């Protein structure tokens, strides 16, 4: 393994972006990681566009109202909801990741009895609590958007 990364003491990232789609036979948490990154990148793109659009405010009331009339179209409303849903997922999954990185929800160590279960394959109730909360909040926001 003579790659630059391994010389620096890091393991080489052999899977690269492909690993986002299929990293191996892991539990749901491995793929929530992919979704976390995708929602993060989508939110970053949205924020960049949002900031660029805010510049129309400097053009005065006419320029602003012209822009808002475009955003009133139904296609933009769907996009707006998807952004809100991405935010809900990213925020709640980020909270779960924070708790896991800091060790609070990793679970207690267990004796290595066959069949071995490593940290990546352990099933944790917090994942299901988080997914249920995301669903509930996404439905609430959908109702608020529609009504």
């Amino acid at each position: 393994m003579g790659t630059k990364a391994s010389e620096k003491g890091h393991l080489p990232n052999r899977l690269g972006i492909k690993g986002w789609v299929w990293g191996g036979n892991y539990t749901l948490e491995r793929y929530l990681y992919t979704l976390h990154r995708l929602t993060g990148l989508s939110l970053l793109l949205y924020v960049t566009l949002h900031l660029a659009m805010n510049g129309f405010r400097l053009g005065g009331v006419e320029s602003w109202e012209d822009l808002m009339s475009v955003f009133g179209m139904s296609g933009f409303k769907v996009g707006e909801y998807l952004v809100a849903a991405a935010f809900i997922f990213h925020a709640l999954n980020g909270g779960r990741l924070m708790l896991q990185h800091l060790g609070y929800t990793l679970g207690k160590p267990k004796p290595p009895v066959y069949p071995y279960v490593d940290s990546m394959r352990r099933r944790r109730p917090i994942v299901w609590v988080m997914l249920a909360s995301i669903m509930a909040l996404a439905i609430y926001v959908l109702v608020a958007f529609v009504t």
Partner: protein
Amino acid sequence: MSETRLKILQYITGIGLFLLVGTHLIVSHLSGGEPTAWESIAERASSSFWLAFYILLLIFGLYHGLHGLRTIIIESIPRLPAKVVDWTLVTAGIAIFGYAAYIPISAF
């Protein structure tokens, strides 16, 4: 700054964003009324509370977003020197901050 400190800042800005973006979403989309109407925009633009709120949201959002992007770039393209990535993103962050902060400050 060490990677641990950068990561802790990522957590702090993440918690801050949850509160700030949550407030922004509730005020702008879920509270009824016409939050994007010019009168409403002009009213918020003259408030020092909303000016401070948007600047803080901008700082937290830029740090959180660009640090997340840095993590993805460094992990996905390990051949790229980390310093090049860092300085490119810091420069982009300062430029975006300058442009985005100018809008509410000039309207205040």
